[in-house]
Structures are given as C-alpha cells and as structure tokens.
C-alpha cells in the first residue's frame, strides 16, 4: 500500500498541472480575502466572513477535487495499465487505499494552500488603508482553521470519495460530470430551500457543502455573535457536516470492499442491437463519380455537424442532465413563483424569468462541458486517426463542432419554453404567450448560449487539457464579472462577459424599450466570441503534433486567405458594435461606477454642505403642467409655484438641485416674479444650480416662481430608466428641483475615505428645533395647495393626486386636470398608462361619499375585489378610530413591475403590478397580501399625510409602524387568527434575520433611521403585543389624541417618535408600562420554551395536565451584546391545545383547550390545569407574539 501511496504522490508531484491547481486554490481565497468588504457593523475579517470565503471556495474546489480524486483508478483503465498492474502482488484493498490516500494527500495540500491564501488575503487587506472596506480585528488562526477543517477537509473527503467511487465503478468521464452537477444542484437547491420558512429545515440535509446549513445556523445571529463566534460543530451545522461526512465514509468503505480487479476489467455487458439479416446479393463493383465542389463541401459540413450533434444528444449523460435540469427548473419556478408564501399566477413573464433562472446554470454547464467534449471528441475516441486524412477541409472539421453545439443551444432554448408551458399547463393556466416565450428566449438566452459555447470552444481549442479548460472558462464566466464589479468597481457591461443592458418584462409595458440595448450588447458578445472562434480555427488540431512550436508554426501558415478575412470581419464588426454600444451607454447616457458617484457626492458635500439647515424658500401653492411623451420617454414640466420665506431672515438666493432619476434632466427656464433668472453657480455634474434673487425675499413674504424642466432619454442605457415608459410611467414631484441641499453619502467607510466626518446618526436628535419644523418627506413645503394638468399620448390615462376636474383631447394627446381638495404635504406623483378603471363607493361615518378607483391593466381583473376590500376596511378603521378621511376620492394605480412596492400619495396610491394584481389568492389559507398592503397604504393617508413625521431620529415609525399596525388590525378583524399567523411569523423571521445586516449598531424602535426590518417588522410585532395586552381601544384612543395634536402641522412642529411613544405610554396602565419601554426603547429578545408537560386522566373523565415553562427575557445593547437578563415578572401567554382545526376552506388554526396570559417569573413556572379533553400540546407564547429566536420550542407535545 505504501508503494502505491508513494507512487500516487510522486505521480502528482511530477505533473506541472498539480502546481497550477495548488496555486489557484491559494489565489482564489486570497483574492476573495483581499477584496472582501463589509458595509455592515460586522468586521471585514470576522469569523463569519472568513467562513463565507471558504464556502464559496468549496464550490470552485469541486473541479480540483474531481481532477485529482476522480482519475487515479481511471488512469489505469485509460492507459491500459490495469491488465498488468493487477497481476502484481498487491491486494485490492491496498491498491484502493494507496490510490485514495495518495490523492487525498494532494487534495489536502491544496486545501492547506487555500487556508494560507485566505490568511494572506485578509492580512493583506487589513494592512491596506481602505476605510471603505470596513474595520478589521486582529488575526485569529482559528477563524481560518475551523472552516478549513469543517468545510474544506470534510467536503474534499466527501466529494473525493464520491468521485473516486464513481470513476472506479463506471470508468467514464461523463459520470464525473454528472456527479459534479448533482452536487451543484444540492447546493443551489438548498439555497432555495433556505429562502422559505416552510422549507428551510430541509436545507440542512440537502446541502453537501455545509454553506446553507451554516447560513441557517447563523440566521438570527447578531452582529456581535458573527464577530466573535468561531465556527464549531454545533446544532444544525453539526448535523449537516456529520451527515455528509458519514456519507463520504460510507461511499469510501463501499468502494474499498466492493472493488475487485475482476470486476474492474470486465467490459460492459452487450446491449441488444439491431441486426438485419438480409444479405446483399450482388458483389459487382459500382462505378461512381467523384466530385469535390463548393456545394459538396457545404453538404459535408452539414452531414458532419449532424454526426457531432447526435454524438452529444445520444449520450445518456446528456439526457440525464436535461432531465435533472428540467426538474430543477420546475422546482425553482415553483419556489420563486410566489410572494410572501402566496403563489402567483403562472404568467408567461414569470415563467420565462424563473425557468431560465432555474435552467440557466445547467445550460451553461452543459454548453461548457460539451464544448470541451466537441473539441476533444475525435481525439479521445481516436476517430481522428483516419478521419483527419479524409478530404474534408479544416473549416468543415472546425465549423461542424460549432454548428452541433449551436444545435444543442437551440435545443436548450426550446426546453426553456417547453418547461414553462408544461408548468403553466400543470397549474391549469392556458394563456400561453408564445410570442413572449420566443422573444425572450431567443433574444436573451440564446445569444448568451451562443457566446458561451463559442468562448468555451475557443478556450478548449487553445488549452489542451479538459479540466483546466473547463476551469478557465468558469473563471472567465464567473471570475471576470466579480473582478470587474467587486475589485475594479466598474459596472461597464462591455467588460464583463455576457452582460447586457438591464430590463424587465411587464404586463403593462411588455418588453418596453429594453430589447434594443439587449440586442446590441448580445450582438457585441456574439461577435467577440465569434472573433475568438475565427482565430481559434487556425489552432484546430488535425492529425498529430509533436510540439507546441509546430502547432504555432502551422497556425501561422493557416492564418491566411479566408481565415484572415473572417477574423477581420468579426473583429471589425465587434469593434463597430462595441463602439456603438459605448457611444449609447457612456456618451449619450451616463454611467458611473460606485466609486466615482461616491466621490461626486463627497465633493458636493464639501462644497454645498454649508447650505444645510440654511433658510430656504418653501412652496405654498403649485400648479403643475406635465407633458408625458410616452414614445420618446420624455417629460416637459412647468411648475407655477407660490413660494414663501418661512424664516426670520431675508432670503437672497435660491438653490435648485435636480433629483429626477432621468439623467438628462434640465432646468430650461426660471422666472421669479416675472423676471427670468440665470444661475450664478451651475454644477451640471452634480446637477445643482444657485440663482440670485433680484431682490431679497423678506420673512413671511411670498413670491411667484415659474420653473420649466425637460427630461429626455437617448438611445439605450445601463439604467432601466423606469420614470417614463412606453406604457406605465410613474414619477413624482422630483420632476421639479429641490430647493435645499442634503447630504447624499451616508456610509461611514466611504465618508472616511473621502475625508468626511463620520455620522453616528443620519438625522438630528428629537430636541433639534430646526429639524422639528422639517417635514420628513419633503422639507421644501409644509402643507400646500396643488393642481396639475397632465397630458399624455391619446389612449393612455394620466393620474395625479386630487379630484379629476376636467379631461379633454387635443390633437393626438389627452389632457387631465386634477385638483387637491385640501392642503397636503409636498409629495405628488404622476402616472400614465392604458388602464381599465374599476369603481366603487365608500360612505364615511359622516355620510360623505368617497369614490374608490382601481386603475389596472386590462389583463389584471382577478384580484380587484381584494384591493377594494382593503381600501374599504382601512378607510373604515382609520375614519372610525382616528379622523375622518378628508378627501372625496381614493385610488390605486398600477405601475409596471420594475419594483415591487406601493407608495401612498394623498388620494393616490401607485401600486406595482407584482404586488397583488397577479397573485393567486384562490386558496383561502394563503396570505392575502393585496388586502394587507392596501390596508397599510390607505393607513398612510393618516399616518404620513395627516400626521407627518419630523425629520428626526426614529420619526419614520409614525408613518410605517402605525401603517403596519392598522393593516394588522384590519387583518385581525377580517381574517382572524389565520390572517395574523400569516403576518406575525414572517415578521418575526424577517426582523431576526435582518438584524445582522445593520450597517449601524442596531437601533431601538424609537431611534431607528434606516432599518426597514425595525420599523416594519419589529414595529408591527411590538404594536400587536401592546394592543393584545393593553387593548386595541385603549391604544387607538391614545393614537387619536396623538393625531389630533399633530395633524396638518397645526402645532407648528412635526411629530417625533417620542411623541408617539408618549401617546401610548400615557394610556398604558402602570403594570404594563414596561412593555411600552421594552418595545420602544430597548432591544429585547425572549427565550421562552416548554420544559415538560404531562397529563393524566382523572376519575371524572377530565384531564389534569402539569406543565413547566421556562421564561427568559434578555436585554441587548446596540452592538448585539447581552446587557441584562431580566429578573422581573413578565406577561406571557400559556396554553394547552388539541389537534389543529382545519376548516372547510382548508385553513388550519389552533385549537386551545386552555389559554391565558400569565405573569411569569424568570426561569421555570409550573402550572396544573384541568381540561375536559385530552390536550396534545402545551405552549408558552404559542402564537409567537413575542420576539424569540427559537420559536419552535414554544409548543411541545404533552406526554401521558
């Protein structure tokens, strides 16, 4: 055994490719380490981040493990040494052991190189002065060693023994690919499983690399835990690691005992083959004419392409890959085609995106593998020894392989379509949009497939080693985009292989204007790889070569005539298309990398920072004329403003900063009190202009200001430019310039890099008297009057806030005039598309009639009732409990799916088409988020528009947390326990899992500035709990008082989070005030669990259950460190439950036999309860109302 072991070792160490592998294994983690960047409060070289690097590496390392561990036994087969080797006096076991451990030693050397690479990378990263890459802690050997051991060594053992086994028994390279791909699927599927609450537990078992299991383990960890906890074999991670390690050992042992020389040498069993028994009669020789024409050449090409194509598709592994790809695509489509756990309708636009998302990785792998196979096929099957002497041109030999691969690409593209249609059919959806299928797949996927295969083909022609060839292709495919994006921080699509301009598909807007840019960029990549392929043709191996020099010499001699012409043609076309694309993306349009935009913002702050908090004009009245040009995607706007000097000092200048997302937006005219103004400062780069007023505007004086702006789009851009679309424009008041400057660079690392002061808080404290007078949404106005006239293409409907006063057509345009009935904050939207309008009426408690309108795509009629119900319920709830709805109209307006959100402007709520319009709510048990979100957005009419937050720390909770609260109450009343369950469970999960992403220390609810998970999810959890213990009516009474005090800026200040807190605190009984403090001012996590529960039957037929629950409440500081374990009593639900009840509608709810809220002391609390029926489960906080990182142990089975 020792001999074989040493032979294996020496064999490997003598081969140069081994050192290349070792070097690459060193280099990848080194680069990942150097360029690792932390934008959160986590250290850049935290144990967690280092583990992440090893996780990524495990995937790449698969190639090297396969290359080393797959071949040792196969080598004896390939080199035909097996026959003799096995006659030597070596036992089978020793043979296997020697080969295996020899190879594994090499693999371990590679893993050690990787560990050293990571160490070197991070240490180097820490030494470089780059504040924007985050902060580093001291070097800790164990942070590298543990992931090396638990990830790399474990993975290499499992993968090694698997590949070793596969090759030993199957002796065929394709099996190796299959094994590798199955492992890939394991990782990608486990990642998918992890993304859903219902399936995340499965990821532990499915993930061969341990990455998903690690992510699952650390899901709810705080930044502090991520920073300080070393990787250890615990919990879910241990389960995963031991599972796959044991599987590895099992496979190894199996190989060891199952391997026999005899079995290895026996050839495959004969297949049944067709035989024709008819014999030919004549043997007279037929004389034939031979003719070598151009036409014949073309036919030869076609004929050989067919043979090559058949050689790919008749390969069983190819078929297996396709089948697996289809299954995975189906699974990923199922996983993705939902929102908040509720399925979406299987629309074609979802199908094309999800199916290709699921199958793309496969298709790419298939194309890369088979490009390699196509290059090597006639060599590895030795056909070339006679075939290359046939009168077939080099071009035919070369092109036939490419044509066969293009055939495979067509096949793969068609499979995408087929899977989509099958999925739709399976779901009983028959509205196939074939045009969309074909357009998407053949304009987006197919060109990428073609350039992928051309690239892979070229690399394989140049590199005469299959593994190395595959690896180089992968590096170019994955590595270059990472290099360009992460290291060079350039987002130029012309530099990252396969990149195109972005786009999206919408039911409203179709493919929009995006196909143009995608066409040119796709063409660019096809031509690029076409150029490579043309050059590659001279390197095609025909016959035998004795040296690289000879090959080069031959290549030179072949580079003539047509080859030169084709190469030059491709090169010229490539350069032309590249230049044209560059002109569009970079000259006609603007594209900046993140570094330069950071620098621009930093420079602006240095120049204009002095204007912050300086008095500026404010708007009291706006009459807007907006012309939307949907064909050219442009806007002309004219705003007639009445402005006021709200301050105590005269104002002599007006600052105007253009905030509109369309890059080419210009202020074309500024007229102040009938006098045209020219800026004395023009910063067209930052788009900031300063005008001097002809005479100072005195305090409290008003003036007339007319501003005209133009926004234009040109050619195709890297920006999706969603403001104005062909059908579905949606933009807001930013079409007019802002009158004040605000800082734009908030990330502290970047601020430090550019010499700006670090910010602890983004907003001023709640005591700042200037900030208290600032409206959080737009400080350019307090409450104001608004009127708008919008024109758009005929056939489209344009909408702005307010009631529709008048509409008319003029020439080929339609005009709409809207007027706000009451004052509102400076926050308006403009929308235009072809709509159907669904109307309804809601009667206010006072008897006022309010018109309800839902502007929707003619395709989206399915869920309109949910929206209207949400509107009515929320209008009712807010009007009855707080203040009557002040307007006579309320609308929901659909906009295209470039983003998934809804935004509440006064009277008008633009709503993404993906946020409920295309959901499938047919199953009652599924969470109806259309209703929920609508209730939330309607609530903003009060919480946001009637009471507007001030521009201070935490004030946004007045808007978001209260809107969440109202929607939660609406759910409670409409859907009961099931509705709440669908809300609280994901809220808890989202809050806990996002905590570690805080880029500042975690703030309390009262101080939150940027954490959505705090103001939405934590906020709703807290509010739900408070109304649960204090009473909904009491809370609402407090909120009503709060609203009345702060509505419409009547008090002269805007509300703060403290005011909100006090409003609740004041109505809360003393004994419960701790809950208000915990919720608003602290970071509190409970660790509640059931310790044990036993029941026995009493003589009277009743059941007496004794159960012990453990209650623990921990206070954390803002870095995630434990601050205090509470020793006081807390109010917590306890209960006993029977079997869940499933209603006729398929909805499952809990069945409490006993349920009460109790004061629990810290630690164990035991209860003895008698119930009529036998309880199955005992629970503490069984409905998960409290924030608890392990909610699974809150309910436990009762033992008898």
């Amino acid at each position: 055994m020792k001999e074989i072991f040493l032979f294996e070792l020496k064999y490997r160490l003598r081969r140069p490719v081994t050192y290349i592998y070792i070097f690459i294994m060193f280099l990848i983690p080194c680069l990942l380490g150097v360029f690792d960047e932390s934008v959160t409060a986590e250290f850049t070289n935290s144990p967690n981040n280092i583990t992440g690097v090893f996780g990524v590496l495990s995937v790449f390392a698969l190639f090297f493990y396969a290359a080393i561990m797959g071949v040792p036994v196969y080598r004896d087969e390939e080199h035909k040494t097996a026959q003799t080797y096995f006659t030597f006096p070596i036992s089978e076991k020793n043979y296997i052991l020697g080969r295996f451990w020899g190879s594994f030693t090499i693999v371990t050397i590679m893993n050690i190189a990787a560990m050293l690479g990571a160490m070197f990378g991070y240490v180097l990263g820490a030494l470089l002065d780059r504040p924007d890459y985050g902060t580093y802690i001291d070097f800790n050997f164990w942070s590298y060693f543990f992931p090396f051991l638990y990830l790399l060594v474990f993975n290499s053992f499992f993968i090694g023994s698997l590949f070793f086994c596969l090759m030993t028994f199957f002796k065929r390279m394709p099996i190796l690919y299959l094994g590798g791909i199955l492992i890939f699927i394991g990782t990608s599927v486990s990642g998918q499983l992890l993304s859903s609450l219902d399936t995340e537990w499965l990821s532990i078992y499915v993930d061969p690399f341990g990455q998903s299991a690690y992510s699952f383990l650390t899901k709810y960890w705080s930044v502090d835990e991520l920073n300080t906890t070393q990787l250890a074999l615990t919990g879910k991670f241990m389960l995963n690691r031991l599972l796959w390690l044991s599987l590895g050992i099992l496979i190894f042992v199996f190989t060891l005992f199952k391997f026999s020389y005899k079995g290895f040498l026996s050839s495959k069993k004969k297949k049944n083959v067709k035989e024709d028994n008819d014999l030919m009669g004549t043997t007279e020789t037929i004389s034939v004419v031979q003719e070598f024409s151009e036409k014949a050449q073309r036919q030869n090409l076609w004929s050989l392409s067919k043979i090559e194509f058949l050689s790919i598709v008749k390969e069983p592994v190819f078929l297996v890959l396709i089948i697996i790809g289809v299954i995975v695509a189906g699974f990923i489509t199922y996983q993705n085609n939902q929102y908040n756990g509720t399925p979406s309708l299987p629309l074609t636009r979802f199908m094309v995106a999800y199916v290709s998302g699921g199958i793309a990785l496969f298709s790419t792998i298939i194309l890369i593998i088979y490009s390699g196979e196509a290059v090597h096929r006639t060599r590895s099957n030795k056909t070339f020894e006679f075939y290359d002497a046939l009168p077939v041109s080099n071009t035919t030999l070369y092109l036939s392989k490419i044509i066969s691969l293009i055939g495979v690409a067509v096949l793969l593209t068609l499979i995408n379509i087929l899977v989509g249609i099958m999925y739709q059919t399976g779901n009983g959806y028959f509205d196939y949009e074939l045009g969309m299928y074909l357009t998407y797949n053949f304009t987006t996927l197919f060109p990428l497939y073609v350039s992928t295969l051309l690239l892979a083909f070229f690399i394989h022609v140049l590199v005469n080693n299959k593994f190395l060839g595959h690896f180089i292709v992968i590096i170019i495919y994955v590595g270059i985009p990472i290099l360009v994006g992460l290291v060079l921080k350039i987002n130029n699509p012309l530099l990252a292989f396969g990149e195109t301009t972005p786009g999206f598909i919408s039911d409203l807007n179709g493919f929009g204007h995006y196909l143009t840019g995608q066409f040119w960029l796709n063409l660019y990549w096809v031509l690029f790889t076409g150029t490579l392929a043309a050059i590659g043709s001279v390197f095609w191996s025909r016959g035998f070569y004795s040296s690289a020099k000879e090959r080069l010499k031959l290549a030179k001699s072949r580079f003539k005539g047509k080859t030169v012409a084709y190469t030059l043609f491709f090169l010229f076309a490539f350069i032309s298309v590249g230049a044209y694309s560059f002109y569009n993306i970079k000259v006609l349009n603007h594209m900046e990398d993140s570094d330069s935009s950071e620098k621009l913002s930093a420079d602006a702050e240095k120049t204009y920072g002095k204007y912050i908090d300086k008095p500026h004009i404010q708007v009291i009245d706006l009459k807007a004329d907006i012309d939307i040009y949907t064909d050219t995607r442009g806007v002309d706007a004219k705003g007639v403003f009445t402005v006021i000097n709200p301050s105590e000092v005269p104002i002599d200048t007006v600052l105007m900063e253009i905030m509109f997302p369309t890059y080419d937006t210009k202020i074309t005219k500024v007229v102040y009190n009938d006098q045209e103004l020219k800026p004395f400062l023009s910063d067209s780069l930052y788009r900031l202009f300063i005008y001097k007023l002809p005479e100072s505007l005195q305090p409290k004086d008003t003036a007339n200001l007319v501003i005209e702006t133009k926004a234009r789009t040109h050619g195709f851009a890297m920006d999706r430019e969603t403001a104005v679309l062909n059908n579905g424009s949606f933009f807001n008041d930013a079409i007019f310039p802002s009158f004040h400057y605000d800082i734009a660079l908030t990330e502290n690392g970047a601020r430090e890099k550019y010499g700006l002061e670090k910010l602890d808080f983004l907003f001023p404290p709640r005591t700042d008297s200037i900030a208290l007078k600032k409206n959080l949404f737009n400080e350019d106005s307090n409450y104001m009057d608004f009127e708008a006239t919008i024109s758009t293409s005929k056939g489209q409907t344009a909408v702005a806030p307010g009631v529709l006063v008048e509409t008319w057509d003029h020439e080929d345009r339609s005009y709409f005039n809207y007027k706000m009935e009451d004052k509102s904050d400076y926050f308006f939207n403009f929308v235009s598309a072809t709509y159907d309008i669904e109307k309804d009426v809601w009667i206010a408690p006072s008897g006022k009639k309010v018109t309800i309108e839902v502007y929707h795509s003619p395709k989206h009629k399915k869920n309109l009732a949910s929206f209207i119900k949400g509107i009515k319920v929320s209008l009712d709830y807010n009007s009855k409990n707080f203040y009557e709805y002040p307007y006579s109209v309320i609308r929901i307006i659909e906009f295209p799916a470039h983003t998934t959100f809804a935004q509440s402007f006064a009277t008008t709520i633009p709503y993404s088409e993906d946020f409920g319009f295309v959901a499938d709510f047919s199953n009652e048990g599924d969470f109806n988020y259309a209703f929920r979100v609508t209730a939330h957005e309607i609530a903003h009419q009060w919480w946001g528009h009637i009471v507007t937050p001030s521009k201070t720390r935490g004030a946004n909770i007045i808007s978001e947390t209260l809107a969440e609260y109202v929607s939660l109450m609406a759910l409670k009343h409409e859907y009961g326990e099931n509705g709440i369950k669908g809300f609280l469970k994901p809220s808890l999960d989202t809050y806990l899992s996002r905590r570690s992403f805080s880029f500042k220390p975690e703030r309390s609810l009262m101080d939150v500035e940027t954490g959505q998970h705090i103001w939405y999810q934590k906020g709703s959890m807290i509010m739900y709990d408070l109304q649960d213990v204090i009473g909904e009516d009491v809370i609402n009474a407090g909120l009503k008082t709060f609203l009345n005090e702060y509505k419409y800026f009547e008090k002269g200040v805007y509300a703060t989070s403290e005011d909100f807190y006090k409003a609740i605190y004041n109505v809360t009984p003393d004994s419960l005030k701790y809950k208000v403090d915990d919720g608003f001012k602290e970071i509190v996590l409970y660790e509640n669990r059931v310790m044990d529960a036993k029941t026995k039957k009493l003589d009277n037929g009743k059941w007496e259950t004794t159960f012990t629950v453990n209650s623990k409440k921990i206070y954390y500081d803002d870095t995630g460190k434990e601050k205090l374990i509470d020793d006081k009593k807390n109010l917590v639900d306890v209960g006993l439950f029977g079997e869940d009840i499933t209603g006729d509608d398929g909805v499952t709810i809990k069945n409490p036999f006993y349920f009460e809220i109790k004061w629990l002391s810290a630690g164990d609390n035991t209860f003895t309860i008698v119930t009529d029926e036998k309880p199955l489960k005992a629970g503490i906080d069984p409905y998960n109302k409290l924030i608890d990182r392990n909610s699974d142990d809150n309910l436990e089975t009762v033992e008898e």
Partner: protein
Amino acid sequence: MLSITNLNKTYPNGTKALNNVNLEIGTGMFGLLGPNGAGKSSLMRTIATLQQADSGDIKFNDINVFTEPDELRKVLGYLPQDFGVYPKVSAEMMLNHIAKIKGIQSKTDRKAYVADLLNKVNLYKFRKRNLGDYSGGMRQRFGIAQALIGNPKLIIVDEPTAGLDPLERNRFHNLLSELGEDAVVILSTHIVDDVINLCTNMAVFNEGSVVVQGHPLELSNTLNNKVFRKNIAKEEVEIYQSEYNVLSTYLRSGNLYINVYAEGVPGEGFEEVANNLEDFYFYSINQPQTV
C-alpha cells in the same frame, strides 16, 4: 507514383523518427517491413497528411503532400493501425457520410456503393448497429471499408489484418490485390509472409531509415547459400551470438536452433538451409551498415 525524398523528422524528445528517407513507389503493392518503433507509422502518417516533417518532400504524381494536403486526401485511402469511431453512429451512416466527403454526390449511387462496400467487408448485416457496439474485428473491417471508399489512388494500410480471423484476412488480401492493379498500395506489417504473398516491391525500415528496397524474392535470394542452421543448447546462445552473425534463434519441436549468416559453412554442426525473406529481414535489420 509516390516519391519520397530526404524526409526527416525528429521528435521533441530527441527520437529520430525519420532519417533521410528516400523512396520511390510505383503502382502495385508495396510492403513495408520493420520492427516496432522503426518509424513505419510515422512515415505512414506523414504520407497520409497527418503529420508534418522537419524537412524533405513527398510527391504523389503531381501532388505535393505538404502544400496540397487536400488534393492528396481526395485520392487517399488510409487505414491506421490504431483508430477509433464515433460510438453513437451506425456503420451505414458513417460510411455514407465518408462517401459524401469522398465526393460521391449522387444519393442513389452512394447508397448502392456503401451497401456494396459493406457487403465486401462482410458487415452488411451489422450496418445499422452503432459503431460503439462493434467488436474489434468488426471495427477493423469497418476501417478497411472506409479506406476503400472512392477508389483511392494511394492506399496506405498499417497492420490491416490485426485482429482478423484467417477467413477475413484472405478476403481482405484479395480485395487489396484487386485494388493494387491500378493504385499505389503501401502495406505496413511485420508479418513477412504477407509481404511475400502480396507485394511486388518492398522496403525494410529500421531506426527511421530505409535499410533496403527491392523485390521480395530478389532480396531474399541475395542470401542464397549464406544461411546456416544449428541446433544448440540454451546456455550456448550468448556464446554463439558473440561469435557469429546470428539472424534468429527459434524453437522447433522443443529444440533450440539458430540461423546464422556466413559466406561459407561457419563451423561444425551447421547445415545450410533454404533461406527465406524472413532471414533476409533479420539480416538487414541487424546489419544495416553492410547494405
């Protein structure tokens, strides 16, 4: 007429595969004899356009093999010693494809032609079977078939009968000699009998060079009366080898014999034997300097 002049080839590891090879080969069967590693396959590959030479020329009639490889390929039939196939393609489809490549454009002609060819190599009933499922002998016959497509003017066959049973071998030899009537056929082999039976001309090839060239019988006759045989003991082999020009040592009915080359009876116990081409072959590869 194939003429090879001053052909040289040295591999990067220093092996001189072709050492100033000069050969003129006319119509008919030409046998190429040589031990393993003599450079026969290198020579054949080079003629078959599959390998470059360092220097020298190969001309077939008016075709320069190095500058017009495609022209040569049109009239070439080549059966390499070790070759493979597309495993997932049937023999019929592959031969049909090769026929197309060899310029047989008429579909009906081609079909009949391929069928005839399959029949000739006795593969007709296996024509639908994938090549990957062929046995070694069947594959060899397929190789023969593909080499014969399109009535080649230059046929190069490298160890063609390896793996064929005697019946198939005869069948192939007949085919080959038919073709040799109006084509140049180069047969590389180390079966000396095949050369005697089939070839009108031959060369002995060793260490990259042509050792001798001529008519097999005439060459064989040059050693008439100069080959002697002796029955010796096993332990004497080395002594004899150092003292005599031993052509071969072989066993007959368990007794060890040596054949020795000498101008006259070399000594006691030796008897003159009826020499054959094999003796000449051994003679020429052992003593290249004397020829």
